[in-house]
Structures are given as C-alpha cells and as structure tokens.
C-alpha cells in the first residue's frame, strides 16, 4: 500500500512538474535585439514597426550559427504590429532581450509615447532596461544598418553606455521613460541619434518631451551635460570636458570631477511669480589650455569658465521653457513646497512666466601635469 502511494504520487508530481508547460527551446526562439517605430509613409495613420531578430542555429559540435535580419510590419497599434510580426517570424518571438527601442522623430511628435511602450511595460516578458532613443529621420534606417558582424543594437548600446558615463546623455531606458511620461509633474529627455553619411550612428544630443509627446526641440550634448548638472542627478563624479570656444586663443577645457547642485524655489505670494535659482558648483582640473605654459591664474580661468557656463546654462533654460518641457521637475518641487499653489494657478502659464536663474561656478583645483 505504501509503495503504491509513493508510485502514484511520484507519477502525479512528475506530471505536474510545472516547467513542462513553460519551457521553450533555444533553437526555436527568435531573439529580438532591437525594435524601431516609424510613421508608415504610405499610410500616415499607421505605425511601421521593425525588429532585428537573432537566429541561433546549432551547426553541430556545440557550435552555433548566428544570423540576424530585419523584419518589418505595420499596423494601427503596437499590438497589431506584434501580431503581424509573429506571423512573419519562424519560431517563438522573444522580446525579453530587446536591448534597444528606437522611435522616429515624426512618429514621436504625432503619436503618444505611452501608447507605443504600453504593451512592453505591461507584458511579463518586456525588457524594462532597454535603451530608448529618438532618431533623426527614420528609425528603421538605423536599425537596419550593418556596421560589424555583431548586431547594431549592441553597437548603439555601447555608444550610449559610454556617453552616459561621460554625462553626455541622461541614463534613459524604457523604465525611466515610462515613469517620467506617466508622472505628470516631470518631463522626459532621451537621447537623439542620427545616421551619419558614412553609415554610422551618431549621437546628437537629447530630445525633449512634453507629457507624452516629443516637442521637436533638441539639446546638444554640451547643453545636455549642463541640464544634467542642473538636475543634480549625478551618481558618480562625472569626467566631462567643457570647452571654452568663444575665442580660439583663449580656449581651455576642464575635467569635471565633482558636482554640487543646490536649487531654491520661491513663490511670491502676492504676484504669484515663481523663481527658481539653481546653483551648480563644478570642481575639476585643467585638461588643456591654449598658449601653455599658462600666464593666467586659476582664479581668472574659474571666472571665465563660470561666466561662459552660466551663459550657456541660461540658453538651456530658454530652450526648455520654449519647448514647455519640464525636465527639471519644477512642477514636482512646486507641489512639494507649495502644495496649494497649483490649485489656483494653471501650470502651463506658470511655466511660461517662471524665472529660472542658473548660476554655474567653476572651481579649478589642479592644472594636471603642466604648470
């Protein structure tokens, strides 16, 4: 009797081993490593989606053949495109390793970004750390580039990771984009890339968002660095080059090693005027100086750099105000400090009239190897 029970329960447990239902074989998987979305040129109502799929085929002896191809489909929504792609790909489409999502600029202006990303965020498989970018021109053109043997997604991934390390672009992925788009109190900024003449991918800067849509305004890489400094979101001391190129003979550049940011938001209760002062202190060492050995003191260089950077930071604030893109999360600060203020005032109007005063101070602490 005891043996019988054991045998029966063993059979039952074997049958119910849950792995059986959820297993997929690697050779049947078609791993997607990049996704792009564009406007369909024939039918502007439609979205054109493309995926770069990786095909793994065992060629015997533990070796695998890799081939990677681009597949396109179009439809009114992302889930429609997904359905169509499933029928075009031989095998199980697996998006859990889609490292890159590119959105063409025309589509980003017209279609809400959350409707594009919603299926990815909702699904169990969706990869939330995939890098996102807006492309100048068509996104599928970049995705279909063949630069080296490895897929283009990895090439762009490395490009982004390096630029993030240098504080040239913000750390943006599907998760941060989704969280900033959903959050009404803050707007998103994500990398902006283009296909260069030599069929390479080039980073141009960052694209500014307003709520769900791309505004069409772009910050250059230098401006993005300043914007990131003003956000005060620096996890590691960034090593960043700032070049003073007002006059060729005066040019010098500084490695920034430490950044301190302090912002102060005040509301004048009677006039309803909002003022934001952002003080950024940069600490670094001299990287290059025209006309070396130097005849100027560090203090003079500090002063020059500070005026130049403050000027540039003002430009940045003008651009984001123009684009109505609240990347500095001013609305959040306002709601946190003056919870009742926005109940009586319309945010759009407040943001138009807001006075942002950036104050960037450079502190050169060393002149490296040369005196």
């Amino acid at each position: 009797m005891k043996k019988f029970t054991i045998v029966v329960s063993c059979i039952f447990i074997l049958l119910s081993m849950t792995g059986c239902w959820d297993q997929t074989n690697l050779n049947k998987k078609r791993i997607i490593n990049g996704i792009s979305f564009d406007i369909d040129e024939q039918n502007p109502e439609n979205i054109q989606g493309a995926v770069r799929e990786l095909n793994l085929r065992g060629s015997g002896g533990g070796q695998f053949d890799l081939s990677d191809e681009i597949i396109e489909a179009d439809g009114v929504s992302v889930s429609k495109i997904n359905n169509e792609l499933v029928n075009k790909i031989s095998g199980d489409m697996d998006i859990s390793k889609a490292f890159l999502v590119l959105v063409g600029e025309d589509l980003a202006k017209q279609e809400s970004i959350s409707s594009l990303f919603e299926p990815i965020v909702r699904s169990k498989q969706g990869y939330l750390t995939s890098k996102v970018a807006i492309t100048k021109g068509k996104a599928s053109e970049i995705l279909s580039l063949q630069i080296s043997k490895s897929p283009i997604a990895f090439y762009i991934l490395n490009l982004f990771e390096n630029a993030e390390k240098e504080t040239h672009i913000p750390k943006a992925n599907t998760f941060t984009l989704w969280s900033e788009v959903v959050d009404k109190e803050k707007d998103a900024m994500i990398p902006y890339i283009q296909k260069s003449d030599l069929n390479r991918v080039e980073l141009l800067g960052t694209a500014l968002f307003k709520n769900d849509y791309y505004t069409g305004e772009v910050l250059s890489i230098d401006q993005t660095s300043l914007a990131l400094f003003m956000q005060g979101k620096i996890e590691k001391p960034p090593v960043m080059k700032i070049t003073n190129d007002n006059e060729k003979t005066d040019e010098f550049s500084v490695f920034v090693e430490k950044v301190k940011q302090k912002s102060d938001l005040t509301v004048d209760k009677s006039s309803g005027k909002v003022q934001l002062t952002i003080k950024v202190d940069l600490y670094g060492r001299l990287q290059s100086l025209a006309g070396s050995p130097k005849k100027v003191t560090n203090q003079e260089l500090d002063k020059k750099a500070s005026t130049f950077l403050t000027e540039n930071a003002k430009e940045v604030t003008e651009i984001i105000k123009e684009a109505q893109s609240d990347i500095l999360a001013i609305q959040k600060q306002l709601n946190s400090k003056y919870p009742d203020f926005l109940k009586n005032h319309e945010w759009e109007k407040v943001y138009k009239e807001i006075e942002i005063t950036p104050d960037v101070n450079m502190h050169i602490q060393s002149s490296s190897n040369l005196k």
Partner: protein
Amino acid sequence: MSAAEPITKSQLFLLLIQVQIGFGILYLPNTLQQTAKSDGWISIILAGCTVQLVIVLYWLLLRRFPSLSYFELTKKILGAHLGYIFNVIIYIYLILTSTYILIASSKLVKNVLLTFSPHWAIGFLLLAVCIYLCSSNLQIIVRVFTILSVSIMFVILLSFLSFSLPIEVMNLTPVGSSGMSNIIKGLKESLLALYGFEIILFLYSSARHKGKTFLKVITFSNIFVVAITVYLTVIAFVILNPAMINQLKLPIVYMFRPLHFTMIDRIDLIFLPLWSIPVVMSIVVYIYFASHWKTTAPKKNNYFVYINGAIVYVLFLLASKSDQSFELYAKYLNSISYVVIFMIPFILLLFSYILKKKEHPS
C-alpha cells in the same frame, strides 16, 4: 503536542515574522495610493500600533491559561456548547485563510513566473509540500521556519540593490498632505497586510517562555514586520512615482524589474520566489492548527491533516481565479477575520475577567 519540546524565543520570533509577512505587502503601495497616497507609511505605522494593542490584549487573555491550547480555552471560558460553536468558526477561518493564501500564491506564480502552467498544478505542488511538513509535529515545523528565515535575509539584501535606481524623495513630501481621514482609511488597508499575528493565540501553550518574555518576543516580531513593511513601501514610493504606483498591481515586485547588472537581469523573478517561500509555508501553520482542535494525539492528527489538505485543495480548485472573484473572496474572508481576530478574543477576555476564570496551577 505537549510531548514535543517547547518553542524557544528565537524560534517563536522567526515563526511569527514569517507568518505575518504575506502577499498583502506586495500590493500595499497600490492600495495605499487610493487612500493615504504618499502618507501611506504613516498609515502602516498606525496599523502597527493597532496590532500591538491587540496582541497585548491577546497576551492578557492567554497568560491566564498558560497550558491550555486555544481551542480548549474557548470551551473552558464559555462552556462546552458555546465554545464548540466558536471553535467551528475559528476552524473555518483557518481553512479559508489557507485557501486564500494558496489562491493568492498560485495566482502570483502564474501571473509572473509560469504563465502557461495551469493553476491546479501550481496549487498542488505548493500544497503538497505544506501537507508533508504539516504531518510532522510543531517542533519540526518551527525548525523548518527557522531555516527558511534565511529567505527574508535575502529579500532584505535584494532590496538594497534597488537603491541603484533613480530615487525621488520629493514623492513623499509634503508629509500629511492627504489628510487624517485618508490616513485612517489607509490604516484599514495596511491592517490587512499585517494579518497573521492571530497565530499567537495558538502558540502560547507551546512556548517555553511565558509571561513577560513572551510579550517581549511578540512585540519585537511585530515591530520587525511593521519596519519591513514601511521600508518596502517607502522605497516603492520614492522609486516609482505615484502615477505609476496607481497603474501597477504589484509595485514592490515591479520595482525590482528595471534593475540591470552585467551578470544578472530581472531581479523581480528572483525576488518573488524568495518572498513566496515564507508566505506559502504559513499555510502549514494554519492547516496544522486547524487539524489540532479535536485531539492532541499525534497519530490521529495526520489523518486530519490530510483531510484538511484535501478540503483546502478542493476549495482552491472550485474558486474562480479571476481578479474580480478573488477580490470578492478577500472581502468575505476579511469579515470573518474581524470576528476571529478581534471579536472572539475580546469576548473571551471579557468573560474570563467577569467570570473570574483562570487556570489554577496544579
């Protein structure tokens, strides 16, 4: 049961925190977002204080009858007939709670981990382990829980990883903006997440240290659970913004998803199984006590354990697994739990004082 070794202080502590930590916490930021919003952590602390008050009352009741099990205690205070009715209600509560935990865990495993596996298989595998453990004695169960507490350690360690995500402390300010009435509403929700402490009622007679030491241990375990709940909720609020928490079913699982490391991805898929271990194992405790209300002879109990296991499995299969019916189920269970967790112990306490009933040391 009395033949087995009594439970030590540390064992009691580890058992209690694991029974009290449940799936409720994973949903909590989302439910709090509907009421107390970013002040949810205040609600949780207040709920923790309420629980503390209740367990002190439990302790006042239990210390009058140090060697009686809870089922014997009801009969002793209220007489055989009324005590029997109360025991049946408590039994039903224990069985329904086990079923509820089983449904919740199988739903979670299916939704997040094994999408294509059927419910009956997931539920069976989860329950089979529990029933096997249940058929042994309390001492063994407690020892298993002691080992399993490592998983809680891992969960806490994993949660440190989430600090590498962008953090927005401004999501928590201004403190107290949602108003007192919303915070009180949030208290009710948070209380649900802290259920599990009622198991104290059944444990007193088996504990080695009674009296004030017992109260100290249960207080510490309550503080620990409340601290973990507050900690995880606050992290969820600063990492995910309020609008996002509003959309997410399981904010605390989801916040591990964007973590990305060179060696490892999808931390949420590691977090959830680790979290499920103590939660699923708390079924063991519920079924164990449900099976020990009639008799204390160890041999016969196994028989009841299998019957109760079968009842739980049948109820689990019968229950519809849709989100709506699950919510309805939770609502009904909630009303029974008010009776069992709050009303019955208070009635007992009141009567034991009025009738001056007390166990005489023999």
